[in-house]
């Protein structure tokens, strides 16, 4: 007999399941709107020009493959911190921060979660917005934390339930951990406005909560890296020492290279050094040291003025294409004669859109039109092109009229 007879079959990943079903479909008009990766207007993966250039530069340098330090490539971590905090950030300039390289967004979140489990003794509770990225819950749970929620998305209006969020957060026990999506909330696409962020920051500060920012879409949301980092920077400006996870999967298209970073804003540089030493102790038994390739590419881009300029242009064009698809979807729905209010499609921001479609309607879209999305009605706008937006609008109208 086997050691593993009692091991249960793990449930299939809901999002991967969408792609699997899509692949099996033979309908020539099929659309995959479950994909969490950017696609160009031909529906193809897009390798950024600045990435290609950086890769060519790296190849020409003929570097060795020696281990990185446990905390990662220093040029990369410093540039990541500067990108998030802003070059004029007092926290950045004074060195009262530590940034370690992480395995993209997930790995960075996990390092942070483990760090909090070990060193944040005030609370085990992490408050997530309702809803949040599906992987947040198991990440924190596996790290040994407990999950709670605060109101966030209002399904009646398909927008932010701001009074609900403010109300819930103001009642969270002091010193709890509250997780916030810095921009382009996943899965809803619903972000607070700057005035609302100001109120949230005030409550977080008043309640002495630990703010954990997840920033996976800087630049990718509005097209402007500074605008997308506004909330993160505002909190720090208000004297809130946040922790932050960054991903370069989407904004640099480096998905499979796993480039990310985890940052802790500290009281001073000395505290930052001590925190860094503990982060390394967590990382070493996980994977020893991080992968070089993605970090090298990202570092070269961020630190080479020409490449950085080109990157900002490319990130803006990706964001612009997404925004344009939102606009076209809404106008096509109007053209179809839909009487529903679809404003939330253009109000929402980032890669994802909570359409407001119900499960039965989603099922019809899949079965009758071969348009694939997750059951919660979330679509990846990145999967929409000028070639298929008309078809999508037509299908949505058919199932909602």
């Amino acid at each position, binding site marked *: 007999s086997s050691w593993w007879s009692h091991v249960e079959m793990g449930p299939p990943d809901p999002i991967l399941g969408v792609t699997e079903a899509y692949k099996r479909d033979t309908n020539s008009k099929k659309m995959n709107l479950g994909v969490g990766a950017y696609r160009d207007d031909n529906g193809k993966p897009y390798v950024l020009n600045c990435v290609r250039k950086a890769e060519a530069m790296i190849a020409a340098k003929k570097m060795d493959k020696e281990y990185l330090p446990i905390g990662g490539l220093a040029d990369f971590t410093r540039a990541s911190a500067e990108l998030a905090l802003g070059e004029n950030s007092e926290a950045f300039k004074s060195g009262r921060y530590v940034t370690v390289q992480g395995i993209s967004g997930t790995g960075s979140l996990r390092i942070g979660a483990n760090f909090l489990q070990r060193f944040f003794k005030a609370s085990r509770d992490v408050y997530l917005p309702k809803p949040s990225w599906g992987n947040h819950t*198991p990440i924190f749970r596996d790290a040994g934390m407990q999950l709670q929620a605060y109101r966030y998305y209002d399904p009646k209006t398909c927008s932010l339930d701001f009074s609900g969020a403010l109300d819930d957060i103001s009642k969270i026990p002091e010193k709890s951990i509250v997780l916030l999506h810095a921009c382009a909330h996943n899965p809803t696409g619903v972000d607070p406005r700057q005035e609302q962020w100001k109120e949230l920051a005030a409550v977080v500060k008043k309640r002495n909560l630990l703010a954990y920012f997840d920033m996976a879409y800087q630049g990718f949301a509005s097209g402007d890296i500074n605008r997308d980092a506004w909330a993160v920077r505002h909190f720090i400006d208000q004297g809130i020492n946040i922790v932050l996870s960054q991903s370069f999967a989407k904004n640099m298209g480096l998905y*499979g290279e796993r480039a990310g970073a985890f940052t802790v804003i500290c009281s001073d540089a000395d505290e930052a050094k001590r925190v860094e030493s503990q982060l390394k102790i967590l990382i070493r038994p996980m994977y020893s040291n991080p992968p070089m390739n993605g970090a090298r590419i990202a570092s070269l881009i961020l630190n080479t003025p020409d490449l950085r300029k080109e990157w900002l242009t490319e990130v803006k064009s990706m964001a612009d294409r997404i925004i344009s698809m939102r606009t076209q979807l809404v106008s096509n729905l109007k053209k179809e004669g839909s009487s529903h209010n679809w404003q939330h499609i253009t109000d929402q921001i980032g890669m994802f859109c909570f359409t407001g479609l119900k499960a039965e309607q989603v099922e019809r879209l899949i079965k009758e039109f071969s348009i694939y999305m997750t059951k919660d009605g979330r679509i990846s706008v990145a999967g929409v092109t000028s070639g298929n937006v008309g078809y999508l609008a037509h299908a949505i109208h058919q199932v909602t009229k």
Partner: protein
Amino acid sequence: AYRTDEGQPWVLPVVKKVELMIANDNSLNHEYLPILGLPEFRANASRIALGDDSPAIKENRIGSVQSLGGTGALRIGAEFLRRWYNGNNNTATPVYVSTPTWENHNSVFMDAGFKDIRTYHYWDAAKRGLDLQGLLNDLEHAPEFSIFVLHACAHNPTGTDPTPEQWKQIAAVMKRRCLFPFFDSAYQGFASGSLDKDAWAVRYFVSEGFELFCAQSFSKNFGLYNERVGNLTVVGKDADNVQRVLSQMEKIVRTTWSNPPSQGARIVATTLSSPQLFDEWKGNVKTMADRVLLMRSELRSRLEALGTPGTWNHITDQIGMFSFTGLNPKQVEYMVKEKHIYLMASGRINMCGLTTKNLDYVAKSIHEAVTKIQ
């Protein structure tokens, strides 16, 4: 890490070639790999460990998880064992590591949640070799179902491996006492120069019907250190069991790193799946292994020529990157402070640091340390 005779890092020629191929392939992009990794990498990596003619592969009862280096593979395996090995909560299941062992073994299993990490006898300092009796004794007295971390070859840090006959004895006790073998294979090919020879122990255990894990690293044998290329090979009783195990490992991977890095896996997969590149790689590996073997024999012969007190056959008996010289802490201090030769307080030296240019100096320094300091 490996060093050339000029004391430099070495990117394998086959790696350079394959990287160029990858760079010129416009069909490639940077999309996410599946959670468990690049399929061509996983299959080839496990095939390298288990052998082309492995019965386990033929019977379709193996699984693979692409991981972040050998460390990542160990960690995924450890996390899985803690959740699923013997019942659903293994925090109290004893995990045995050798004395001494790579120090990160302790941390990996501890951070995975195991609370009872014990040691098994391994290094006999007096005879400078394997304490087989001590080892077998520990196997006999370990609680049933304990997990044993075994070094597949080139034991780190001692360089001392059991012989095939000794492995057979170890396996017999482990089978009788229902102990779980978790192999750490970080030096396949790099140790003896032969992939098959360095995988003998793992393959023997498989042929004896064990279910086991093998954490593989391609850091050293491919020189891909910073690309973090590793693989956890799972051998089970049948395909159904392995499938369920992998589905749970997938959940563990998803909350640790979501999916693994692409570059290093592509290099290894491309190399292993091309007969020509594979041969080239084996040649590169043999180059590294041979240089280390040469340094071992040259160091030993110099010490014997100098008449350095003690026996020095352990230098060539031992295998892999490291050697437990037998120097005591005071002698080590002398080496570091007076001779500027850096080695661990345990007396462990990295053979890769030796070159034809420094052999004489190192041998003389060891001679001085041993004769001057007791």
